[in-house]
């Protein structure tokens, strides 16, 4: 494994962006095709639908070193899979409340509906979020011992069954 590169004095936030294949990922492609430059801080993980987003993924991103998480899905009513984005929203509403209880700044985890045609919105949201998180500073979660970071201490998902 290579060493993480050193962060320079000016803090560069690391954002994990979960984009749905049909709307937001396509919009990000469009932003590229249109050569809209924007902050390099967001790294996209493609899922087929925002409904695939398990809150575990968002927390895993934060645990692994993301300073922010952006979720991009189709606008309400526009989901390629009819209602996946509503399911994503149900989880997000509760997750947001939970993150607030954890004391994590609200701005670090953001949900945006971005349609396939809204390349400009991808650009704007990523720029905004990068600026906001740069102001907030890095998310310095208390480190876990490396092994435990894999999960609940059960190092490997061994399916022991009843003993």
């Amino acid at each position, binding site marked *: 494994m*290579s060493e993480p590169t050193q962060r320079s004095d000016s803090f560069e936030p690391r954002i994990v962006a979960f984009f749905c294949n049909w709307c937001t990922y*396509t919009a990000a492609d469009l932003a590229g095709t249109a050569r809209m430059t924007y902050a390099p801080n967001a790294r996209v993980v493609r*899922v*087929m639908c925002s409904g*695939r*987003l*398990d809150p575990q993924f968002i927390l895993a991103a934060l645990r692994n070193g993301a300073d922010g998480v952006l979720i991009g899905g189709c606008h309400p009513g526009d989901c390629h899979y009819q209602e996946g984005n509503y399911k994503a929203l149900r989880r997000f509403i509760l997750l947001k409340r939970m993150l607030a209880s954890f004391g994590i700044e609200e701005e670090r985890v953001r949900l945006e509906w971005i349609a*396939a045609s809204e390349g400009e919105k991808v650009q704007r949201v990523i720029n905004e979020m990068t600026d906001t998180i740069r102001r907030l500073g890095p998310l310095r979660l208390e480190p876990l011992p490396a092994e435990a970071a894999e999960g609940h201490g059960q190092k490997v998902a061994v399916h022991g069954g009843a003993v």
Partner: protein
Amino acid sequence: MSAVNASPNGTPKVGVYVCHCGINIAGVIDVTKVVEFAKTLPNVTVAQEYKFMCSDPGQELIQKDLKDGKIDRVVVASCSPLMHEPTFRRAMAACGGNPFLFQMANIREHVSWVNKEKGSATEKAKALVAAAVRRVVFHKPLQKTQVPVNSDVLIVGGGISGIHAALTMADAGRKVYLVEREPTIGGHMAKFDKTFPTLDCSACILTPKMSQVRAHPNITLWTYSEVAEIEGYVGNFKARVRRKPKYVDEGLCVGCLECIEACIFKKGKFKDEFNVGLSLRKPIYVPFPQATPLVAVIDPETCAFFRTGKCKQTCAEVCERKAIDFNQKEEIKEINVGAIILATGFKTFDASRIARYGYGKYPTVYTSLEVERLVNAAGPTGGEVLLPNGQKPKAVGIVHCVGSRDEKTNRYCSRVCCMYSLKLAHLIHERTGAEVYNFYIDMRTPGKGYEEFYDRLMKENVHFIRGRVAEVSDWAMTPEEEGKLVIRAEDTLVGAVRRIPVDMVVLSVGLEPQPDADEVRRRFNISCSTEGWFLERHPKLAPVSTFTDGIFLAGACQGPKDIPDCVAQAGAAAAEALAMIDRGHVELEPNTAFVTEEFCSGCKTCVPLCPYSAISFDTSKNKAVVNGALCKGCGTCVAACPSGALQQNLFTDEEIFNEIEGVVKYV
């Protein structure tokens, strides 16, 4: 962590190929650094760069390494997977590899094209490569499933695009359902008198096609009908079509029009939609003499029987075929089709939105569509250009770009207005001898014979004034302006503000998406561009496809288009649909959800979440069951499964967790 599949010798061997894409990628990203970095990643056995990975020699690099056993799974860092994932998967399959042991890192659309700074772009590219490498190690070899395709087609919209697509498909022997919401097919084209630049008569070229549609044994034509609901998927759609009652039996009506004559309303009293309100019709009517099908319609909103219950029903009395049926009810038809072509067209810009042009205020300000009806021999004036006072205009101003190329309304160019304005200028000049003034921003006449037509108009002494019109008003400054409308515009070629008094103003309105385009696209599960036009899968490479497989686009619903382009696109959509149907089957992405029964506790959390009812519950086994043919692979159930028993192929928890770790941890 070493749970790896399909690597025969236990350890996975990942090949990483970083594409330059000419200078598209290499101009911003230090590709060599990315390759060197990739070499340091676990499980990577080959890492190299190449100018164009998607080219044959690029693909051969991968194939050779696969054949030589140097690698068993592949990461290509290049463009978007939406662009070339199929290309590389095919390349892998072609040499015996499993195409799903593959992952793309999008370092072009998501990195080099949106980044100018080399350092950060290279770092970001490394992160995406690291994520792809970490993830691909967990990929499993998968198989695409094949499902048979229903060979029938649904075409929505009976304008020239829908008509042409329907005839093409029907001629190829496919059964076509053509659904049109108006009482007749023909669309906008049926309203035009002449078509540019040839000035051939619109009806002469359109109506034969309309009758062909009616007579074609392979076409089921449903007018006055709308698609209410769509379900299913490519190759196997189920559509419910709502047929509104015409109160006239289509099977019995022979189009003699006696009923219209016999109506208790002796004269037309209600705005005639087909003539855009320039004439009046009766409650029972046909939109125009060549309407197809030629069947009378009763409008219950205006019919005395429906409004009051008191009517002598003279229409029914006079009908020898007993075709009038006041008890006709709405009908829902359910059909199964393999492909759908949307050809739902456009609407014209509402000119009253630009108050300073006086539409709706001055009766002699017309929209171009109204003038199309005025110049039409079958129109309300029999083709004479007459003002409301019955006079012919002596001077006519045509205002271009109304609702187009304007930040306040629509930014785009509507593409057809310059040419139809020229056509109208010609027709008005020809019919009235009037002086015709065109006020334009730029003349846009690309197209076969178009520039020549423009030349011809200039020789016909039609005036061209380059400048956007500021205002149309009846405020006279000089005696010559009294009783006239004055068009005020800056003539940018002369550099002076001009006032041109005219008797008639024609507003060349732009094209806009149908008012219900948004509802329609939701119904069909496709996307729209910002302006509201239906979005094609790729503007160059898949211009008639949508992001929903099996649904194609034709005509102006995708963006402003003239008739030749509509017909060309309709032909293309028909060809694409045919290609899909004639293959006989479609291959479905294997990114479906699956249950590991050992871990399923039967809690049923997943069951209600599936919008496709793909998850059922087996009560005897107490397990959830996923029907792979119905599952479309959104993964919503997987995210909810409280015990991780549900997973999604190509998007397992393990794959996504590793991708997350890759994007943040490695670089």
